[in-house]
């Protein structure tokens, strides 16, 4: 097959490309230039492109760089900034996968005549007997599983994907890279958001674009002011860090953020738990089969969050998620990934929290 591999310059996509070459496919490496600004992590810096190019040379495959920085800015960076301005915290990796990697890039690869697009994600495409036969599943390495950030992909995209490292654990991936002498073998995993430099952090990045405001922290029960936070737009529901303890010495959690009044409400843990998650009806995606409305699912609320038992409770406009046990509040615009309780590795679909 003719396969394009999205090479970020990291070890996973390097080995993905290597495995496909070893399997006898005609492979072409593609690196996306996504961020015009300065960056020190992820798939954006010139040195990452350099690493990808060198690995492609070592593997004897062609390598191209696509500049999708304008599209990335419009589809990922700006919505990230705008979201924070109104108290929503979208997941930029998911938005990039949705709009850039598995939309624009996949589309381009199809038109260029590639049969498949491969990436270095730790997730698998598994076969089942009923339609759709190809399904997205968790990666073999539970610590590195990235099925969450792919959970919004439709069946047609899953059928066009190849995820070669999904069957391996991270140690095996690195061993393979070492065996081939790839320069990315010992490169640290990318952390955090690729367009935010580690020395500026979220505060620095959003601060220079948004103008962060100080917020007043109010105890939900007593309605008294108990402190301040330096940047109210960066506070998320369920957050504990930086909030401190109450007069009883117990930790306090964020249970409400109001950007109109720049106030943050805090309460003890019990009040920061909820068993109900409302979703944006238009955000619901499936990987090919209808979601089991009024049936059981497993839900995951963050990239490496614990899988939670839940029900999708039908409503006239769609459904809400009823967790079997209350869990920490989930911030608005976060993605929920749904898994099949009868086939718990397999992704059913996704939705965005209201």
């Amino acid at each position, binding site marked *: 097959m003719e396969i394009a591999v999205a090479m970020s310059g990291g070890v996973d996509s390097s080995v993905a490309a290597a495995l496909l070459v070893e399997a006898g496919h005609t492979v*072409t490496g593609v690196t996306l*230039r996504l961020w015009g600004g300065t960056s020190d992590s992820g798939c954006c810096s010139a040195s990452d*492109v*350099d690493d990808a190019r060198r690995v492609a040379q070592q593997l004897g495959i062609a390598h191209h*760089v*696509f500049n999708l920085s304008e599209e990335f800015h419009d589809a990922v960076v700006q919505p990230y900034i705008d979201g924070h301005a109104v108290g929503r915290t979208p997941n930029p990796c998911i938005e990039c996968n949705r709009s850039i990697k598995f939309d624009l890039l996949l589309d*381009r690869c199809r*038109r*260029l*005549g590639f049969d498949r697009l491969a990436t270095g994600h730790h997730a698998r495409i598994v076969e089942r007997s009923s339609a759709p036969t190809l399904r997205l599943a968790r990666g073999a390495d539970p610590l590195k599983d990235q099925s969450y950030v792919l959970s919004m992909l439709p069946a047609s995209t899953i059928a066009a994907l190849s995820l070669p490292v999904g069957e391996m654990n991270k140690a095996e991936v690195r061993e393979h890279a070492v065996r081939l002498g790839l320069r990315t073998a010992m490169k640290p995993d990318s952390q955090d958001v690729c367009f935010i430099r580690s020395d500026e952090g979220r505060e620095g990045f959003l601060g220079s674009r948004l103008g962060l405001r100080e917020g007043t922290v109010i105890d939900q029960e007593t309605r008294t002011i108990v402190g301040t936070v330096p940047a109210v737009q960066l506070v998320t529901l369920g957050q504990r860090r930086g909030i401190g303890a109450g007069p009883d010495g117990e930790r306090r959690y964020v249970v409400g953020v109001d950007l109109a009044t720049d106030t943050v409400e805090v309460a003890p843990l019990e009040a920061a738990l909820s068993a109900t998650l409302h979703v944006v009806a238009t955000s619901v995606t499936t990987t090919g089969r209808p979601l089991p409305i009024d049936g059981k699912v497993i839900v995951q609320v963050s990239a490496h969050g614990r899988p939670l038992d839940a029900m999708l409770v039908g409503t006239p406009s769609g459904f809400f998620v009823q967790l079997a046990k209350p869990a920490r509040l989930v911030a608005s615009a976060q993605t929920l990934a749904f898994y099949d309780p009868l086939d718990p590795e397999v992704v059913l679909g996704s939705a965005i929290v209201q």
Partner: protein
Amino acid sequence: MPYLDHAATTSVRPEVLAAVEPLLATLYGNPSGGHAIGREARRVLDEAREEIADFCGAPAQGVMFTSGGTEADNWVINGVLDASATSEQHRIVTTNIEHKAILEAAHKREKWDALVVEVGVDGLGRVDPHEMADASRGATLVSVMAANNELGTIQDLRSIATEVRRVSPGTVLHTDAVQAAPWLDLAELTQGFDLLTLSSHKLGGLKGTGCLVSRTSVKVAPFLVGGGQELGLRAGTQDAIGAMAMAVALRTAVAERDEATSRIAMLRDRFLAELAKSTGATSTAQGATVLPGHAHVVFPGMVAEELLVAFDRADLQATAGSSCASGATESSHVLRAIGLDRLAVRGAVRFTLGHATTDLDIDEACSIIGRVVAQLR
């Protein structure tokens, strides 16, 4: 396998290869060495200097070898300003379609002692000599490229020199003639100019050699210091073989110029006509006087980045113009300057023919392009 990226770089001419090969093993002397081995390298270097000077209408001592066109451009900006004693702010006048080597070197001086004026161009990339002259009053340096690297548009250097000299006789005049050199008579082209930049590999020589040529007695301050080997102005052991290769490349280009110019221009025109017919591609600089090898086109509604990968997969090499360090295509300041709209810029591709381009190359290129465009649409 048609290679149509000759303006980026071109293949080494056979004459250059033949001249260089035997010397690689023997001509290792340091031209500054006071012994027979050094003297021999010095002789080769000085002969190359004389020959290049001659083609440029410059005195022999006017050719200062550099590592390439980029260094020569950087040197001009810094060397001319540093040599010009003024207590006031320098004024550098250039165009907004210059090579980045001029633009960035000039703007860098703004931090210290210069004001940079970028004169605009028309929709085909031509600067108006009168506008240039108006902006040049009292300028320390005026730099205008002889022909643009992306579009191939040739400037009216003669009128620019006349007009600028009329209003500002003390201004130093420089032209980056890197793209023009394979095709135009340099001595005639740069009449009235003080300085010109050349690059060897664009002529079919070797990468790593270029020169700054001074046709007049204009003062240029040293750029690289630490030994002053090159005429006391540029430190570093000279590359006699590189210099010789450049002289041979230029000599060969000049000898073949008349024949190559008409042959390549005809091929290019046929190429553009066939492309227009089969794909609807439009020629960006249509109507301007353009270098014979340049075919800058817009494929309406298409994305150059995609086209270039598809061309590459079909063994045809071209470019979208400028690339950044990562290899990604960047939006071109030249296309912005001529007012090309955003969508057209996205579909802009530069094909450049060179001395080695054949009829067969053009036949193959036309067929690949027709096929790829149909597939991507």
